[in-house]
């Protein structure tokens, strides 16, 4: 894969917040993503991981704060990125047609497309279903197709929102290898995962989110061995800290770890 020489990294979030109605769903997040790393965002359901990915990728706009790419406007940066969203969306076309459409959207010439499609299809094991309408594929097949579609675009930054949630174990393993490879070619990977094992295997850097806050961002090794945030620690230990209804304040951090899980 070859990139244009221009790099859009690093990506900087400057004190961003996101509001829907009167609810603040992302709260004053500041951080920076460096080129070539593999970031894994962790956190309980509803923490705001997907919102953060969509915000970085430009699908939603910050209510406050700034999303900045190196030397590039958000709009221009868009064409160097690709995303696999958590809930896959398939166009009403064949599996092949879905990838072809994506390549066309990036103005890749007709003659170049079949080879690219062939390669990504093979690598994601979709050969048997390539001519089926994408929307009747099994969910796992759809998720593989979404990965193939995003990868085909040779992005500089690849956003993956739980890319292996619906994959069978061998496929998960194969996709993890693929992610390593893509990353080795220089692509920055920013992903979420609920699979702690996978996170440990893939992450160079880990991010922990809780109720819209970015609680911790640290090199993976450090994070998984001794997270500084006590919520993150509880999460890694499998504690059900956020299960019960509780006031949604920053004090939550101080009190939550003392909760017992409800049985």
């Amino acid at each position, binding site marked *: 894969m070859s990139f244009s020489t221009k790099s859009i990294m690093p990506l900087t979030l400057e004190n961003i917040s996101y509001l829907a109605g009167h609810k603040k769903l992302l709260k004053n997040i500041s951080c920076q993503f460096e080129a070539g790393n593999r970031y894994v965002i962790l956190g309980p359901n509803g923490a705001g991981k997907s919102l953060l990915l*969509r915000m970085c*990728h*430009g*699908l939603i706009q910050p209510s406050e704060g700034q999303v900045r790419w190196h030397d590039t406007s958000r709009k221009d940066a*868009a*064409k160097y*990125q*690709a*995303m696999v*969203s958590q809930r896959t*969306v398939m*166009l*009403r*076309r064949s599996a092949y047609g879905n990838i072809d*459409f*994506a390549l*066309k*959207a*990036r103005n890749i010439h007709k003659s170049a497309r079949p080879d690219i499609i062939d390669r990504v299809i093979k690598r994601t094991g979709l050969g048997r279903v390539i001519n089926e*309408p994408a*929307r*009747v594929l099994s969910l796992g097949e759809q998720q593989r197709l979404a990965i193939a579609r995003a990868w085909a*675009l040779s992005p500089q930054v690849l956003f993956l929102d739980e890319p292996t949630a619906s994959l069978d174990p061998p496929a998960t393993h194969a996709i993890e290898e693929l992610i390593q490879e893509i990353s080795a070619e220089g692509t920055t990977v920013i992903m979420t995962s609920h699979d702690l094992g996978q996170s440990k295997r893939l992450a160079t850097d880990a991010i922990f989110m809780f109720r819209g806050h970015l609680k911790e961002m640290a090199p993976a090794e450090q994070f998984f061995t001794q997270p500084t945030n006590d919520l993150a620690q509880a999460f890694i230990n499998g504690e059900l800290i956020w299960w019960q209804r509780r006031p949604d304040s920053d004090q939550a951090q101080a009190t939550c770890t003392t909760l017992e899980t409800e049985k």
Partner: protein
Amino acid sequence: MNDIWEALLKAVSLVLTLDTDLLEIVGLSLQLSLTAVGISLLIGLPLAALLALTKFPGRKILIVATNVFMGLPPVVVGLIVYVILSRSGPLGVLGLLFTPTAMVIAQVILVIPIVTAISRQVLEDYHQEYDELLTSLGVSKMRRISALLWDARFALTTAGLAGFGRAASEVGAVMIVGGNIDHLTRVMTTAIALESRKGDLVMALALGIVLITLALGINLAAYLITETAKRRYAA
């Protein structure tokens, strides 16, 4: 009530005898309505897509306007087109009044709003699902429109058929701008109005039945084609 049975018989006999006057009128009706629907789709579908998938200033106003214009009274449209095409109007020099072209223009004005409003509604629901994917892929606005129209094509047939229904059934506007001139601008609906004025209710109803049968044919064809295609594409 007898009138209705008589009309049915009359309709059958009109069709069976292949009445040449009838054939001429039916031909013109079909030609005008299909042309008007074609033009309206060419304008209305992209407009609907634009309204469904982009946010621009004036968008909401346009949405309300298309909905309002679904209720344009044909007579008013006829009068407006008349005023414009009249010899003393701004486009009078074109000499289009009392020609089939004038009738198509009036029908297009009547059909565009209905095609646009229905399509917009359908496309909005599709776009809600596609929006983020298309944004993520960086699809240009033009391609976004064409992709949405393509993927929703089966659902959009309803809009086309509603437009055809309006064009084929409308009388007020084509009567005014066409003039219901025999062998020139007489179509099914104006012929029906004429017969009803003459008190020949049986003939009027018979023509109505022929017109509805015609519409039935077109709808049936559209239905069969889309159903077959739908199954093929599992859309």
